[in-house]
């Protein structure tokens, strides 16, 4: 395989960045859609159905007749998909209101900070170790070259992720401040305190996998937690996983920790004064952050791009693979980005599920949970990981 020239490397990096952005802009609207539908399902209603008028044509005929028979038609579950486009259009087309007393520059820059911070994090996330796919020969300039599974799988990947992700809180605090209004201010302050508090147990819970694998590189971490152990990381790191996921909920301001935008107390929290696409950026940032948290959890605790845990894989290789077609064996035993994405989607479902089930903590209780329970627990967990590392290696 030829070494790519500088131009070729740059072009491939651009291609990868585009792919990541495409991934984000596919998964975020789908999460939005799933949120409506899954919540609807949890709450014994249909969720979004208004757009996509399938009341005409064949599907419409089936729908109407199933309604008459007293059944909820399956097609109704899929109606409302064009609402994804509608959402985006709505945000772009709505009037962008600038409060007269707002600090104009900060008000403008805050959503950008939130959004950029959440997107840039994706650079270090490795969807699959090594090559994602090889470009076909007919592509000009970069034909025949491999495209890696991450934009920049740097050796300090986890540091990059945590560092950049914590920049996002500036967007929220600044938005609350710049709005020059009382509810956003309260929301921004709450959020600042909350995210800073939860950063600590979140980082500590991720340190345990780092200790166990001895690397900060995302793909290496992912590999050692998935196939370096006989089982997925979730088993030796069960508390780590639980605390990480909970802190992830808090970091992304999701239920039951959605203090900054606790709708019933603070109207809409820090983005009360925002409208149009500026609000849209906060909205997108929240869902991208959810995806990032899910991606990290899936890579470190749920086996990342590998379908089978290592132990099972060994058995599988030994007994079954000689009798199965090679393609299937590759599919089951090699890392594939599709499994990684599947696990992300599973975790996103958990987010929605939790949102539909439990009430919201009070602000002081949220802080107490972080400082009184999670930090000591993660420290103990870290110690356990260190012991395992010490005796196992």
């Amino acid at each position, binding site marked *: 395989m030829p070494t790519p020239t500088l131009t070729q490397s740059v072009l491939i990096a651009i291609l990868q960045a585009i792919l990541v952005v495409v991934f984000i802009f596919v998964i975020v609207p789908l999460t939005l859609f799933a949120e409506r539908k899954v919540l609807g399902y949890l709450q014994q209603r249909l969720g979004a159905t208004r757009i996509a008028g399938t009341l005409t044509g064949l599907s419409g005929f089936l729908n109407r007749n199933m309604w008459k028979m007293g059944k909820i038609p399956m097609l109704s579950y899929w109606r409302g998909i064009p609402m994804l486009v509608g959402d985006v259009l709505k945000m772009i087309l709505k009037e962008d209101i600038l409060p007269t007393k707002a600090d104009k520059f900060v008000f403008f820059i805050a959503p950008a900070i939130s959004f950029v911070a959440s997107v840039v994090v994706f650079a270090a996330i490795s969807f699959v170790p090594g090559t994602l796919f090889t470009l076909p020969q007919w592509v000009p300039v970069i034909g025949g070259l491999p495209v890696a599974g991450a934009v920049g799988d740097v050796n300090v990947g986890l540091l990059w992720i945590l560092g950049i992700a914590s920049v996002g809180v500036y967007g929220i605090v600044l938005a609350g401040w710049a709005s020059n209004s009382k509810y956003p201010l309260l929301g921004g302050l709450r959020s600042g305190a909350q995210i800073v508090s939860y950063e600590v147990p979140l980082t500590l819970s991720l340190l345990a996998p780092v200790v166990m694998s001895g690397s900060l590189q995302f793909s290496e971490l992912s590999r050692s937690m998935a196939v370096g152990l006989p089982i997925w990381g979730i088993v030796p790191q069960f508390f780590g996983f639980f605390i990480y996921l909970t802190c992830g909920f808090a970091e992304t301001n999701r239920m039951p920790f959605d203090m900054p935008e606790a709708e*019933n107390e603070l109207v809409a929290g820090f983005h009360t004064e925002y409208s149009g696409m500026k609000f849209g950026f906060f909205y997108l940032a929240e869902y991208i952050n959810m995806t990032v948290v899910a991606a990290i959890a899936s890579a470190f605790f749920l086996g990342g791009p590998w379908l089978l845990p290592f132990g099972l894989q060994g058995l599988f290789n030994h007994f079954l693979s000689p009798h199965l077609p090679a393609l299937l064996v590759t599919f089951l035993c090699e890392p594939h980005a599709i499994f990684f994405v599947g696990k992300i989607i599973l975790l996103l479902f958990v987010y929605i599920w939790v949102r539909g089930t439990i*009430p*919201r903590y009070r602000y002081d209780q949220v802080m107490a949970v972080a400082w009184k329970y999670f930090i000591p627990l993660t420290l103990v967990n870290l110690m356990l990981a260190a012991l395992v590392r010490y005796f196992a290696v």
Partner: protein
Amino acid sequence: MFKNEEMEINLGPQHPSTHGVLRVKLRLDGETIKHCRPMIGYLHRGVEKICENKTYFQGQIWTDRMDYCSAIANNLGWAEANEKLFGITVPRRAQYIRTMLNEFNRLASHLVWLATHALDIGAMTVFLYTFREREDILDINEAFCGSRLTTTALRIGGLREDLPPGFEKMVQKFLAKFPACLEEYENLLSENRIWKKRTVGVAKLNAEDAIALGVTGPMLRAAGVPYDIRKAFPYAAYAEMDFEIPTRTEADTYARYLVRLAEMRQSARIIQQCMDGMPEGPVMAKVPKILKAEVNEVYHATEAPKGEIGYYLVGEKGNPNPYRFHVRAPGFINLQSLPKMVEGSLLADIVAAIGTLDIVLGEIDR
């Protein structure tokens, strides 16, 4: 250079959790509430004055529109106050049907309370579950009188019509499934750690303060005072019913939640007894076409879902309209206790407190 200042903040009148157009003026020190004043009047329509310009029959529809979540309970108080004023005796069958409808109304009102209270605290799924059952109750209302929310189901002197055919089946179907539904809500909330953290010990109002402020209904019973007008001064057919008054002694939001849930069970019991012991007979007494009072005044209190609803009526000789009409609205009086409950606690607690008060602004502002 820096100085500490208390932040003054308006909760409402347009706010997701104040159940309508309540405005609460708060002074916050950080997130702690230092000072709280509820401000009302955004939904004032002058119901009392309007009723003074309507005949006794016409006034009734305005009572529907005070606490629109418990229209039948309001109707019942109005009808009985008038019956007291004019000395009308209501047939026994009508009393039973009234009792049953009133208890259905209590269920509907408590279901709305549970829905909004849970939604305020963030448990959004309960909202849709309770509305599913409330829908059945509204269907029963509709089967009885044709309308669902502001029903005007009762008449002075009895009822306009007897129960429709198939009504009993609807009621039995509802009663058969309702206990399981209550259990479903309890499974979601009662032992939920977060729900308990948000409600246990929050917005306390002890019995002494509650009595001093005139608080009635589940709020009072959750403080350990077993005062329920259905038992204390029985009206309609309540004297013949076998039911309990659930009380708690913790006097906090969680206790009120448990009291209301227990009340729903008792309501279902009363409905069952009404259906079982339903007497035969007419449903309407002989009432003259135009009611004109001698100079006379009457105060009649009934137990609405939210507390004691009292109607004060003064008749005037030769006047087909009441001379003076006043309502003791439970929500209005219970709302007075809000500052007592929340001052010194956190901002998030006021949401729980407003939810536990179970207020309807239509009744408070009248």
